[in-house]
């Protein structure tokens, strides 16, 4: 959306982050393409409601989700991140999901340390048939993030890929 009234960047910066009651947090969900992505597709086709601010990124395996990616998402102002992988023992690539669990635990500690709140990041295991659980987890995560409020790092939008202003 383009703001025509006044300087866009200055006006937006003054606005303090606040959480109106209907606020929908921005969430990035890393979905393993073998389980969670199918579960998300199934949730969609079954018309199961999940929060509107959810953006899904498909990965070949949750073991591929790098720590930088999650941290970068938070840096760019995402309110919450969910990593959804296969059930324990069900990883297509043997134990990618367990590695993802270790990494998310590590990042949660970092988030706590810098005062962002570790609860903003969650790792969930589910199978490709668990569409309702998928939707439930998203609802639950959104609720948790709502109580935490918006990401304090949220700044006026600037695409990093477009370079410095």
């Amino acid at each position, binding site marked *: *959306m383009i703001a025509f009234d006044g300087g866009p960047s200055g006006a937006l910066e003054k606005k303090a982050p606040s959480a109106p009651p209907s*606020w*929908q*947090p*921005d969430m*990035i969900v890393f979905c393993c393409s073998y389980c969670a992505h199918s579960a998300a597709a199934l949730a969609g086709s079954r018309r199961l409601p999940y929060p*509107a*601010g959810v*953006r899904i*990124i498909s*990965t*070949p*395996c949750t*073991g*591929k*989700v*790098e*720590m*930088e*990616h999650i941290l*970068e*998402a938070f840096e*760019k*102002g*995402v309110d919450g991140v969910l990593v959804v992988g296969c059930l324990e023992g069900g990883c*297509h*690539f*043997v*134990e*990618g999901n367990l*590695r993802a669990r270790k*990494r998310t635990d590590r990042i949660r500690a970092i988030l706590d340390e810098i005062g962002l709140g570790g609860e903003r990041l969650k790792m969930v295991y589910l199978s490709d048939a668990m569409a309702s659980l998928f939707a439930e987890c998203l609802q639950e995560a959104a609720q948790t993030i709502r109580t935490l409020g918006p990401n304090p790092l949220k700044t006026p*939008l600037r*695409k*990093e*890929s477009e370079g410095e202003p």
Partner: protein
Amino acid sequence: MARNIRITLEGTDVGAHLDQLIHATASHPRIKVFLKSDLVRISGQPGDFTSVLNVNGSETRVEHGVVILATGGQERSTEQYFHGRHRDVITQSKLESMLSGGPPHPALSGKSDPTIAMIQCVESRDAKNPYCSRVCCSEAVKNALEIKRRLPHSRVLILGRDMRTYGFREIYYQKALEQGVEFIRHPDDALEVVENEGRLEVEVYDVAAGRGRTILPDLLVLSTGIAPAETNSALSGVLRSALTDDGFFQEAHPKLRPVELANEGEFLCGVAHSPRFMDETIIQAHAAAARASAILSKAQLEIVGHMACVNPAECVACATCVRLCPYGAPVINDLRKAEVRGAMCMGCGSCVAACPSRAVVLQQQEREPFSAMLDELLVSGGSR
């Protein structure tokens, strides 16, 4: 295992088929057979494996394009119900070999109306071995029918928690009922065998009759189920292929890759995978052979685009990727840099996320497009 089987339930002569198969294999000019050999190590990639075998104490190198695992299994040994301590307690396969021309059991000699009791699921479907061995019920029904054919006045009882003659073999269960074979269903722990002055006594609670019964068998036959091959755990270590909790080899995916191991170019069939009937084993073996031919028939192999690549300038040869790759795709090459062997890479990206110097990149999943994607996703977010 097939050597102990005389005939299938459907009446196929197993021995004749086996002899013909062994002859065809042994006399084929392009098949090399290594008997009594162990796999010491294996390296390479689909279409280009090198294995070192231990053949009678000396190491032999073999080059091959694929691996098919058909390590079979064995009848489980047991010490329950006086097996090994009482002459008249034998296993189902011992009974089979007796019926196929072996020496008859002394307990039966000269008798025209012996009582033969069979106990199903011995050391099977319990806490230790929870799986069903699939073949034992049909095997018991087959041997019961054969005993009834030879000694019509004999009494044959089959004691079990459940009976399941899989698939169309149900017909033979019906036939056994018609021939007068008695099936006694009992609850989990309501069966006991005691020895009374050298004579076996079976105490069992008959669910159908609603009361306990005592049987005095001349011969007690135990169906002990199928155990995985003893070499499975050693072999799984060499091949880096997972075993199931039951000790059989785990397929890559039960529906999408049912005859493949997780590693590319390696296949499995038969009891190495799970207990199964001979006809099912043959069908599975055909499937494994067909999948293997898909690799062997090609002069060149194509690699999927989803593949990890190492930037040698960044690599410090820490071997993190070598250690954690589930498929053994990365190696440290002669230049002391990690290198991903394309044919073995499945594109899971485990090495990408774990590489401490960020030298590995998964093609089509690079970092820059990811950053851009994140920006776009946030810009198009409806909440702003």
